[in-house]
């Protein structure tokens, strides 16, 4: 009989206790694995989402870069506006291929008695700015149509072709944005000129999205623009990403700390559980020493028990977090800012391997003391009874 088989059978002697200990390890490895892969998927998803916006930088009124970051990804109401003169000035620069105005605001929805988040945009630019979007129905081709985010659509119980009004202004719902999993789902998209008219903010925009002809000249263009146009701030997609990453990093650190603490607690649980069995088995250990087990053998048996427990728990944790990745993702999205659209939790063998090795390591560490205690059992004292 091998030591592994023997240790396994020892664990089976206390099925409930071993199972409960296992649950602790399983849960904490599942959390650890999910958090690490979520963080990795978050970074990757974010840069992918920014790449897909098709814009090189945003121009906003001078202000807080975090506001800009949230505006770029998911819209935010910034009570400062740029006016037409800015976009006219930019249009005069060469090397610019697209300037797309954006106006974000909140509008009271009297029919449903709530506040709508409204995103005014140049509908003809939609394919450039949001290439990843799938729209059911059509994109409005005049100022009378609008598009609903999927969440809004689900709540309102309306259908494509229905009328949607703000006061006297009536729109027709021409399309619905299919679920993106991001905060885009919560917006209503209105042609920008219509929105400007409604708000009496003709010519005013929250931001201008800019695409250049030659991205390699980006730094040069940005420098020129900032020098020649006062009162604006230029934010590149890289800066947006850094800004969001730094916003999200505290959430990441917090979640990782929670996972590590959970793991420490469950490691102490393993240690406690195995230590209890060592105390209960003192006589048995004495007997084993008498029939030829060295201190090393006893040490090996006990540490194998803890490693078996934590490795099994680690494996179970990996399986559970991969099966339940959808649920975990939905849950984390509720608490983490600016989670990019799409699936974030994908199986990553490197993180899985790391988690597994980590669970073995936890087994070794939590087994050291019980194994040491067991190896120190004096056979004479033990078998005296």
């Amino acid at each position, binding site marked *: 009989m091998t030591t592994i088989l023997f240790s396994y059978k*020892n664990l089976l002697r206390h099925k409930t206790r071993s199972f409960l200990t296992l649950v602790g390890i399983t849960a904490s490895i599942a959390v650890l694995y999910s958090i690490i892969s979520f963080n990795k998927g978050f970074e990757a998803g974010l840069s992918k989402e920014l790449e897909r916006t098709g814009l090189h930088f945003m121009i906003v009124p001078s202000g807080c870069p975090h506001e800009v970051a949230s505006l770029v990804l998911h819209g935010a109401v910034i009570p400062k506006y740029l006016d037409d003169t800015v976009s006219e000035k930019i249009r005069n620069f060469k090397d610019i291929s697209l300037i797309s105005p954006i106006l974000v605001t909140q509008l009271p929805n009297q029919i449903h008695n709530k506040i709508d988040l409204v995103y005014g945009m140049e509908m003809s630019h939609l394919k450039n700015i949001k290439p990843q979007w799938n729209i059911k129905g059509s994109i409005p081709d005049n100022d009378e149509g609008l598009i609903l985010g999927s969440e809004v659509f689900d709540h309102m119980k309306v259908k494509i072709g229905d009328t949607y009004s703000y006061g006297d202004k009536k729109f027709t719902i021409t399309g619905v944005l299919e679920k993106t999993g991001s905060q885009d789902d919560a917006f209503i998209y209105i042609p920008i000129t219509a929105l400007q008219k409604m708000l009496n903010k003709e010519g005013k925009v929250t931001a201008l999205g800019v695409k250049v002809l030659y991205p390699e000249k980006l730094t040069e263009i940005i420098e020129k623009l900032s020098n020649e146009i006062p009162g604006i701030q230029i934010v590149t997609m890289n800066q947006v990403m850094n800004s969001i990453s730094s916003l999200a990093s505290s959430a990441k650190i917090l979640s990782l700390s929670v996972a590590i603490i959970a793991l420490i607690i469950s490691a102490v649980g393993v240690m406690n559980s195995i230590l209890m069995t060592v105390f209960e088995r003192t006589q048995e250990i004495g007997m084993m020493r008498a029939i030829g087990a060295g201190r090393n053998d006893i040490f090996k048996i006990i540490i194998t028990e803890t490693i078996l427990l934590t490795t099994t728990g680690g494996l179970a944790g990996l399986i559970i977090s991969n099966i339940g990745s959808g649920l975990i993702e939905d849950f984390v999205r509720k608490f983490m800012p600016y989670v990019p659209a799409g699936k974030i939790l994908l199986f990553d063998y490197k993180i899985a391997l790391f988690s597994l090795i980590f669970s073995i390591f936890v087994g070794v560490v939590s087994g050291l003391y019980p194994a040491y205690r067991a190896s120190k059992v004096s056979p004479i004292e033990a*078998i*005296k009874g």
Partner: protein
Amino acid sequence: MIKLEKVEKIYQRGSERVRALKGIDLEIERGEFLSIVGPSGSGKTTLLHILGCLDTPTSGIVRLDGIDIETMPEKELVKIRREKIGYIFQQFYLIPGLTVYENVSLPLTFSRKERNRSEIENLIEMVGLKDRINHKPNQLSGGEMQRTAIARALVNNPEFILADEPTGNLDSENAEMIFELLKSLHNKGISIILITHNPDLAQRTERIIKLKDGIIESDQMV
């Protein structure tokens, strides 16, 4: 052969010094069947532990097949226990989660000796537990448990069997069966050293060593 010269064993129990053995001189030849008797606290078990290389004396010499073992490090003692000695205890000490077969083969895990399945099965058959081979200890009677322990003691082919009150927890019928089993092992050339409280059993061994207060009171051939 085991030879003890002026063997003393002193325990420190709290502030009290216990002289368990006070100068034991003893020679045990290979193939003997002897019993050690004496009242509780006379030093029987201490003597057995020293004979079984579980413990070393405070002073004196212990020689096993010509090798001094009293100063041997623990690692070497473990090796001797694996190769030369088989232990049988009053409380059997079987591992609850393991079958008879697994309990019997447990010492091989430590000695790293290879024995094939049929050899172990033969041992189990010899102690009369062939039809119990896959049973766990909680499915066995006391006598069956002790027979399992005997098979376990034999699995490494020991030269000596040390039995500490092996019949102490058994009824007379089972005790008799165990004694007969030990006798048959002796007939196969294995030395048996038996600690017992039962004077009738002791009378049926070849030599009786009577201990009292840590010294040998008498040593007689039967």
